[in-house]
């Protein structure tokens, strides 16, 4: 394959280039772009605030615990076995969020007391020396002292002219500490997993040796588990560390919270549709588990909507007819939801209205803006219904445990209404005993948002009932299975089972009635709120749910793309010469007109792990060859094809056998 280092390649000139078609008129793809961008920015800044709040909220308790740990560690220095106070912080595998976490933590720790806080990452710590240099630089540059002042207070041993401390000598820190008297020198090791174990071991050894002079505290960020870290450090090193483990909120919990705060928030003006939501969530579960990725995906969805969809102008706050360009309304009329509305009107024989909708731009505009407002309301109640449903299930501790985001996506896809899932929940609500009913009402009361059902009157009534209740057993409704007893009677040698309702007490009756009312109200609300959002007029504007740019951007398939391009070049080239051959089926589409790399790839797929180049050559020749005289050019094209395969990492030269190359990639992996 490499017998010739270099050769001249002269590609054959294609006979004629496809002429570019001239654009005749300038289409208004970017109509009102600035307005749309402004709307986007407004909306996204709200979302971003919520995201930030949620994130800070999520780890604030852990951060507080760590800060307490740090300030407590400065007190008990009188320990017999002097060891470095160490906080093992289990951060989980989403590396991207470790940095921000330590940043927030640092703000807190520095704020709390007279601590110095330094973050070390694996990137800047390839070995102990570099690590120490960085550490010293970061600590000593924190407080900007006057240089002359410095000189005065510096101990005699290291005056300007004497031996200088080497720049990785922790003596620098000691001098600094003499002047600043920090309570703790907090070292945060951001990504301990990526550190060389030997560097960590040496670092700990060194810090421990200095511990009698410098009050070190270690914070170790761990992506895997504390045991994993202990395994990596040698036994003696562990002796020098003593500490505690801190868990941050699990990433799936944070994602769930973020989802409620952004996608499933009550007042979102643009909704993310079920398809994309599901994709984002599934990707989090299966692949990445990374808060930043979630936020990016969401932002990209918002951007795609406002940047590329002209109709998104309708989401602008307080839009007026003058804001629209001439063809906006015209374009809106082509939307599927508009058409189906028209058809619906026609079915109802309201021809006049249809006419007006089609002719009168201003009227149509009014209808559309109303549709936006009412659509947003409908989606809000859908959102509320999904949240309530999930709360109810949680309060009743129903199994299987279904996450709120799952319920939400199902609701957004219009799948909840009439589903066994909803029916089952409602059945349980109907026969809920009074203790759980109280919990349920509490759960509904403590939730924000505009709930259509007010739990307070129910609560009052329930309390009254409970006061009258003579014993402490919870009240039961008539539907409660525990009020049924099965009676066995033997009649003519057959066993008869008959269900029997136990007589209800007066309280139970009253309670049944109360729960019944609650159940009915809730059912009524659910059946009105769980709509199919696709049926809303202008649902294309209200909901962004396009699969295409999302998958391409967030889940590209590079390997699949290359494999497919090599296997089916015609699909990409669109030339006439190959189309006849590559008609049906895959694999059988070999033809001399295809690019050399594609031909070679076909052969490659059929061969084993080692490929004989001369066999390959003869096979290639049989397909691509047209006459004896062209052999030289052919050999060049094959060389080039092979080089391309090598460049793609498909083959590599092999030392196992002469004249053979090794196959390194298999299709479909």
């Amino acid at each position, binding site marked *: 394959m490499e017998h010739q280092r270099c050769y001249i390649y002269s590609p054959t000139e294609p006979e004629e280039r496809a002429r570019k078609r001239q654009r005749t008129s300038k289409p208004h793809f970017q109509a009102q772009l600035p307005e749309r961008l402004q709307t986007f920015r407004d909306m996204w800044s709200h979302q971003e605030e919520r995201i930030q709040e949620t994130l800070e909220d999520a780890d604030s308790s852990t951060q507080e615990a760590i800060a307490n740990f740090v300030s407590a560690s400065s007190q008990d220095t009188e320990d*017999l*076995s002097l060891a470095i106070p*160490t906080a*093992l912080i*289990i951060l*989980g*595998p989403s*590396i991207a969020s470790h940095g921000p976490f330590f940043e927030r933590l640092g703000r807190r720790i520095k704020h709390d007391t007279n601590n110095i806080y330094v973050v070390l990452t694996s990137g800047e710590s390839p070995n*102990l*020396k570099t690590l120490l240099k960085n550490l010293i630089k970061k600590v000593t540059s924190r407080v900007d002292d006057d240089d002359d002042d410095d000189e005065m207070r510096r101990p005699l*041993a290291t*005056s300007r*002219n*004497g*031996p200088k*401390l*080497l720049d*990785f*000598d922790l003596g620098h820190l000691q001098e600094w500490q003499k002047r600043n008297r920090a309570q703790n020198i907090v070292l945060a090791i951001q990504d301990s*997993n*990526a550190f060389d174990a030997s560097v960590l071991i040496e670092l700990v050894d*060194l810090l421990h040796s200095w511990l009698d002079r410098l009050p070190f505290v270690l914070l170790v960020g761990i*992506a*895997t*588990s*504390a*045991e*994993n*870290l*202990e395994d*990596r450090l040698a*036994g003696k090193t*562990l*002796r020098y560390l*003593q*500490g*505690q*483990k801190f868990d941050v909120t699990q*990433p799936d919990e944070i994602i769930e919270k973020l989802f409620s705060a952004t996608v499933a928030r009550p007042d979102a003006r643009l909704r993310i549709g079920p398809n994309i939501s599901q994709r984002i969530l599934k*990707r*989090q*579960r*299966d*692949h*990445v*588990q990374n808060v930043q990725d979630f936020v990016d995906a969401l932002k990209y969805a918002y951007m795609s909507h406002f940047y590329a969809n002209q109709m998104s102008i309708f989401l602008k706050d307080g839009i007026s007819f003058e804001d629209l360009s001439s063809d906006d309304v015209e374009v809106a009329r082509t939307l599927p939801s508009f058409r189906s509305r028209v058809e619906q009107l026609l079915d109802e024989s309201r021809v006049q209205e249809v006419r007006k909708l089609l002719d009168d731009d201003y009227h149509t505009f009014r209808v559309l803006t109303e549709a936006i407002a009412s659509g947003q309301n409908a989606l809000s109640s859908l959102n509320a219904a999904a949240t309530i449903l999930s709360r109810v299930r949680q309060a009743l501790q129903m199994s299987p445990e279904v996450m709120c985001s799952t319920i939400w996506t199902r609701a957004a896809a219009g799948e909840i209404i009439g589903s066994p899932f909803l029916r089952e929940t409602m059945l349980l609500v109907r026969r809920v005993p009074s203790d759980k009913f109280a919990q349920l009402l509490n759960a509904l009361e403590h939730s924000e948002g505009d709930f259509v059902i007010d739990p307070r009157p129910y609560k009052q009534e329930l309390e009254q009932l409970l006061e009258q209740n003579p014993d402490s057993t919870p009240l039961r409704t008539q539907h409660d299975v525990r009020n049924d007893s099965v009676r066995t009677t033997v009649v003519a040698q057959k066993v008869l089972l008959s269900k029997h309702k136990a007589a209800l007490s007066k309280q139970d009756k009253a309670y049944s009635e109360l729960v019944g009312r609650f159940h009915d109200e809730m059912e009524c609300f659910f059946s009105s709120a769980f709509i199919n959002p696709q049926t809303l007029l202008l649902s294309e504007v209200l909901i962004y749910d396009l699969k295409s740019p999302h998958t391409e951007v967030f*889940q*590209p*398939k*590079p*390997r*699949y793309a290359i*494999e497919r391009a090599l296997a089916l070049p015609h699909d990409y080239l669109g030339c006439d010469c190959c189309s006849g051959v590559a008609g049906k089926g895959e694999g059988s589409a070999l033809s001399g007109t295809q690019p050399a790399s594609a031909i070679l790839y076909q052969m490659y797929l059929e061969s084993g792990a080692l490929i004989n180049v001369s066999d390959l050559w003869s096979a290639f020749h049989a397909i691509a060859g047209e006459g004896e005289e062209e052999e030289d050019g052919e050999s060049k094209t094959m060389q080039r094809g092979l080089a391309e395969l090598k460049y793609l*990492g*498909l083959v*590599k030269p092999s030392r196992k056998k002469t004249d053979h190359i090794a196959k*390194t990639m*298999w299709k*479909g*992996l």
Partner: protein
Amino acid sequence: MLPDEVLLQLNRDFPCRESQIHQLAALYSQTLPSPSLLVAHGLTATAKSTLVRAFLARSSLPHAIVNCRECITGRHLLEHTVAACLATVEAYYDETLDKRPFARTDSLSMLAVNLGKLLDGRDKFVLVLDGVDRLREPMPTLMSALGRFGEVIPNLALVLVTTLPVRNLHHPGTPHLHFLPYSRADLLEILGQKPPPIFLTPPSAEQYSDYTPELAAEDDAWLWNRFLGAVWDSLSKHTGRDLISFRNTATRLWRPFVEPVISGQFGTRDFSRLMVNRRHLFQLEDSVLDRIMPAAPTSTNFILSKPTTAPGKPLPLTKKKTLAYDLPYYTTVLLIAAYLASYNPPRTDVTYFMKHTDKRKNRRHRTASTKTATSATAVTKTKSRKIPRHLLTPSPFPLDRLLAVFRSLVDGRVPQVADVGTQIATLTSLRLLTRVGAQGSGAGDVLEAGARWRVSFGWEYARSLGRVVDIEVGEYLVGGVD
């Protein structure tokens, strides 16, 4: 010689070191000449550092002690040594020196020159290099050069503190001071001096009015000494024989050991009954292992709840639970696949991972057949027992093999998304997978074809991962693990 009361005090602080203290006192006195070089050697925690330091501090000789553990390179040691000597001389003679001539010390000969300059015309000066044999980046000639310092600088008395006696000094007559490892009796004597209290809060005064602090201290010492003996005989004799390991083990076990005494189940002198009751403490290895987090006190509660039944092995519950962190689904499967690719030989992949064969059946079949084979030829084959695969070192595998195993483990199709590659890269940066091979680490494409990986976690972790995603990893491992 030092005054007797100082020696007495030293002997009180460091029991079982009489001979070493005596020799030190003889070698380093104010008036008599000292050896130009002394090698003080001994295993860890034999009081080398602390005793030398304490001795010199009381001896009123000018001395500097350099802790080599704090020196990052050989050069660092040189600079550090000069700085330390300068500081000592200034403090001892109470004068301010012109330090400019000492600004640079970048070689051993420079060190000799600088020290010579500094000590010229002064009294004897003791320089201790503590742990020179553990220096991180030593110069090759360090030891032999240090051996000759005495010839160059007559009033320097150099002390090298090492773990093993130094061979390459090229000086036959160098005196060595051996810090002998402690015997059982020594250890019990040293640790027995400071018994920890049984009762953290003294028992209520009204109820036990006659239990005075003196009595309590007596009880503490009595029980502690017996307890130390038990710990030594059952645990520390076999592992961690040095003083510090022994002390750590004993302190870790002490609180759970005296728990029944505090709860009133046994008296303070019921040693043998206490031993029977707490025997499980001496059967587990947990207490001899160093951990960052203090061990959870689950075991004691566990035992207390059923004191009569034989205290079985308390399960390390916490450990099991935290072993596998919640990884995304495919990441978990990828790790399992990597583990299998590392531990199974490639030629067995067809049997274990072909989609159309029933994997489990296959494995059972294989082991069954091998079993019958071995039993038939039991006499000859027993000798060539194989090491279970999961105890061997992992072998490297190429990327495509990992992906192939991964796909066969997952039910249903996994799209060929870039996320799979991202995950492999992430796992590599978490060092759960290690990239092997010469193609410069870090440089270039992480997922370059031809690169090879191996796992860097063990069987326990792989199995716990498998539990998370319902894959019984042992079933796929050649040879199987139960």
